[in-house]
């Protein structure tokens, strides 16, 4: 079959992942039957991955503007937040779940590469990466293979490229066994007046391709791999996974930033999903132009590629660039310096069509508007239905399911739970310090970077999502994900500014999944409005399911916070023997969806903890005020494992792992009080002289304040329930994952 002349049928469309109606719409939009190459371009542009066809209606309900946002969500490749002093921060999170499930090493590596390009295509130099990872349980052999492969892929790509990987999460739960989640967030900094836009500008400009040669890797990545569920055929999809080259990306970074700094760039967009198809059409839409592209001029890895293959290739480390014709020589000189190939492949036009030529023939002629989101791409609002499983989960009584266990046993088991235990096996493989800005990374609530560009100021970044809560109560779970991310950033001493989100769900054509999606988005929106942290962009990953079983709905939130003064940076670990320890927030007792319930019973049941966004906001205000006044030695939020684990972590992460806690605590049901996961709570430590001042601030904001005890020189005691010391806890906590992976060589 010659794809350029083949007259397509509905069957062809279905094989490319389009529906019958979508095929009919394409024929109507074109007023003729598309050839196979054209249909291929539609299939990727109208794929879930590129068009957001099933999500955009919901996403539009999110707050997407604010005084600090320099671009609105979806307008450019990443969000852009004003941090004043002439600088802005670009940041975004994206998923690479499906490729990582099929080929963990390359899947994760190219996930890192893709998001980094989104950042530097805007003119920002990447200064941090975070990874939010979810796998099945570690006793499964395939999970260990995926886990080790993903971590290695991230490590090799990020380390070589030279971006510090400073934070993120690793979570283990059965539902992710066949379909791990790999969400990568990147953060970059740039001068606010040197932003590059993803636009074609105007007609008669030169269209250039920059970077790696185009090969056959990644064809159908967006349309067929990322936009459908896993089944027995998935193994055959391995060739749709792209192959990454971090060295090439590093050269592309330097060349791109130098091009932008030179002032000759009219527009630039990276090539990720749907490669040349996506970058040419999206840039043309933004610049209100067409493009005339000669595919014979695209540098190829293999000589005999068809127009179809060139247009759908997802080869990595490529950019599309639009410049004036007279600037071509200057662009070539910059690329020559960095040994990055550059080639002119076309010209922008005034006719609004993407016109492709190959071997001297015109092989495609497609109206730009018909391809893109906001234009001809379909928008669906799907049917919703409250999931049946909720009857069962809401009826369950988590406290009864846990049954009788001593607090001490529960505590020890939790310290060794992979979801709580130290992830140092993972993060020791990430270069977290390159670029010499990292002040805090994995041992604190949020990663903190100082900004060399803006002396005295810093950024705090965190990713969060407890998907069990979202599963049990999508609205609350969505709101909690934002609240916890904001709380983490606040604990480190920063004011939350904005979020990016990565929405990982099952098949949206399933009404129960779509219900989860719509509710979670509402929860996120309400929380963002409450904290004044608008959504700057992100990505949606549907079809995360296998054998008709969806992953837990997982809307990962990436939060950006600004540290106004580096003196405000606050660690999670205790700092001084003799400091007082107190809890800001209610003691609480909610065990629904808790780590304790899951660890002991492998069940996820009950309701998600309650969240009152007003209370949460007042907590943030209290803590930030106390921190900014210099009253706080350490702050750590209560999350998985509740109050007891928060206290343990503040000991384990204390200075040189030498401090403990002596907490007087008597209660009727210690299991609920110590391990419940009620929200809006932070464990703080401070010197005696600040006690009254902190209490007064808490009182002003009507935030409950409970004294807990004292920081000790190593002993750890909670009432009559738990008695141990910091080294014993650290041993359990630090080695749990290595032991589960079967590594013997455990160096301190």
């Amino acid at each position, binding site marked *: 079959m010659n794809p350029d002349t083949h007259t397509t049928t509905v069957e062809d469309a279905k094989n490319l992942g389009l529906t019958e109606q979508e095929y009919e719409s394409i024929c109507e939009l074109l007023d003729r039957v598309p050839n196979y190459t054209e249909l291929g371009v539609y299939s990727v542009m109208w794929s879930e991955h590129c068009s957001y066809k099933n999500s955009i209606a919901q996403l539009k309900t999110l707050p997407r503007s604010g005084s600090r946002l320099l671009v609105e969500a979806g307008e450019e490749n990443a969000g852009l937040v004003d941090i004043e002093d002439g600088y802005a921060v670009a940041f975004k999170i994206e998923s690479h779940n499906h490729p990582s499930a099929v080929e963990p090493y390359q899947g994760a590596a190219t996930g890192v590469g893709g998001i980094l390009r989104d950042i530097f295509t805007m003119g920002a130099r990447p200064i941090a990466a975070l990874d939010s990872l979810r796998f099945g349980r570690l006793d499964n052999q395939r999970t260990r293979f995926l886990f080790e492969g993903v971590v*290695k892929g991230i*490590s*090799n790509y990020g*380390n*070589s*490229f*030279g971006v510090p990987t400073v934070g993120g999460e690793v979570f283990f739960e059965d539902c992710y066994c066949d379909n791990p989640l790999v969400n990568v967030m990147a953060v970059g900094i740039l001068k606010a007046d040197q932003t590059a836009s993803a636009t074609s500008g105007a007609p008669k400009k030169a269209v250039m391709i920059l970077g790696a040669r185009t090969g056959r890797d990644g064809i159908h990545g967006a349309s067929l791999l990322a936009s459908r569920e896993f089944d027995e055929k998935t193994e055959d999809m391995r060739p749709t996974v792209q192959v990454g*080259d*971090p*060295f*090439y990306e*590093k*050269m592309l970074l330097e060349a791109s930033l130098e091009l932008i700094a030179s002032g000759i760039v009219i527009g630039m967009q990276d090539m990720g999903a749907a490669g040349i198809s996506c970058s040419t059409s999206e840039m043309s839409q933004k610049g209100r132009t067409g493009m005339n592209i000669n595919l014979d001029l695209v540098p190829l890895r293999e000589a005999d590629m068809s127009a179809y293959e060139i247009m759908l290739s997802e080869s990595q480390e490529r950019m599309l660039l639009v410049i004036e014709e007279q600037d071509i020589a200057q662009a070539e000189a910059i690329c020559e*310096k*960095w*040994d990055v190939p550059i080639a002119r492949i076309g010209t922008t036009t005034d006719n609004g069509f993407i016109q492709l030529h190959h071997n001297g023939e015109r092989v495609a002629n497609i109206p730009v508007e018909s391809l893109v989101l906001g234009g001809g791409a379909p928008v669906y609002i799907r049917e919703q239905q409250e999931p049946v499983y909720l009857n069962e989960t809401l009826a369950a009584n988590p406290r009864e399911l846990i049954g009788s266990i001593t607090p001490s046993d529960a505590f020890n088991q939790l310290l060794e739970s992979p979801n709580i235990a130290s992830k140092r096996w993972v*993060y*020791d*493989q*990430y*270069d*977290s*310090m*390159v*670029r*010499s*800005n*990292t*002040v805090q990374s994995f041992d604190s609530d949020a990663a903190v970077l*100082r900004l*060399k560009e803006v002396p005295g100021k810093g950024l705090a970044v965190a990713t969060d999502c407890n998907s069990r809560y979202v599963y049990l109560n999508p609205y609350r779970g969505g709101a909690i994900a934002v609240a916890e991310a904001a709380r983490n950033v606040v604990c480190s001493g920063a004011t939350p500014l904005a979020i990016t989100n990565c929405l990982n769900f099952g098949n949206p054509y399933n009404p129960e999944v779509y219900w989860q999606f719509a509710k979670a988005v509402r929860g996120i929106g309400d929380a963002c409005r409450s904290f004044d942290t608008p959504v700057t962009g992100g990505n949606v990953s549907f079809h995360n399911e296998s054998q008709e079983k969806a992953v837990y709905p997982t809307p990962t939130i990436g939060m950006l916070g600004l540290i106004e003064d*580096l003196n405000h940076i606050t660690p999670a670990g205790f700092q001084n023997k003799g400091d007082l320890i107190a809890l800001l927030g209610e003691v609480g007792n909610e065990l629904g969806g808790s780590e304790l319930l899951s660890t002991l019973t492998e069940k996820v049941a009950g309701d998600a903890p309650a969240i009152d966004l007003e209370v949460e906001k007042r907590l943030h205000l209290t803590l930030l005020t106390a921190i900014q006044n210099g009253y706080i030695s350490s702050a750590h939020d209560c999350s998985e494992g509740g109050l007891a684990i928060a206290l343990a972590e503040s000991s384990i992460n204390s200075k*040189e792992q030498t401090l403990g806690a002596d907490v007087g605590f008597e209660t009727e049901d210690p299991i609920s009080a110590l391990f419940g996961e009620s929200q809006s709570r932070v464990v703080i430590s401070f010197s005696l002289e600040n006690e009254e001042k902190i209490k007064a601030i808490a009182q002003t904001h009507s935030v409950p304040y409970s004294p807990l005890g004292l920081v000790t020189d190593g002993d750890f005691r909670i009432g009559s329930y738990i008695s141990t010391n910091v080294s014993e806890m650290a041993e359990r906590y630090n080695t749990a994952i290595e032991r589960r992976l079967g*590594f013997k*060589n455990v*160096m*301190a």
Partner: protein
Amino acid sequence: MKIGVVVFPGSNCDHDAYWAIKHNLGINAEFLFHKEHDLKGCDAIILPGGFSYGDYLRSGAIARFSPIMKEVIEFANSGGLVIGICNGFQILCESGLLPGALLRNRDLRFISKFIHIRIERGDTIFTGELNRGDVLRIPIAHGEGNYHADKATLQRLEENDQIIFTYCDPKGNVSEDTNPNGSQLNIAGIVNEAGNVLGMMPHPERACDSVLGSTDGVGIFRSLITAREEVAV
């Protein structure tokens, strides 16, 4: 006094070294691009960390053939001061300025963390402001830092006192347990026989600013600057 920082394609600690020298130590710094043949009158040269040429083929194996390395080798052979950090150490070994090689880490994984190193000699150009037995807390970040040399070479290194940094615990005890990557004799850094070329896996440029958690790297750069300034006087 001016210190040059070489920029290879794939160097990614070049900016960090430049920043530490210029802003933390207050000394002139200048980037030297790999395609050039001019050391621009620098008094000392840093080969920074990173993944020069992607570390493809073998770490440092391609970088040693860069145009700038011809000048760096000549400079070193005529007594010029050169520090290779991490990838820079690998490049110095590949180019023959230092003996031995850096193999993959014992556990075959990249390691990024703060570790401790003990100063084995306080009388070199690079440690003059430190004392033998001092312990520095300083980060490592490498996949190939497992120092290896044949027996005769190791013996020569020991006899000539060329081993100047070893991996140790916070109290300065050197043992197999304090060896992060499998390096022979816990070697973290060595000098050449003439004492003007240093290779080290840990990153002193990441430990020059108190906000980053350690200023233990300052002593190494300060020693070099003092030594060079004394010569100049």
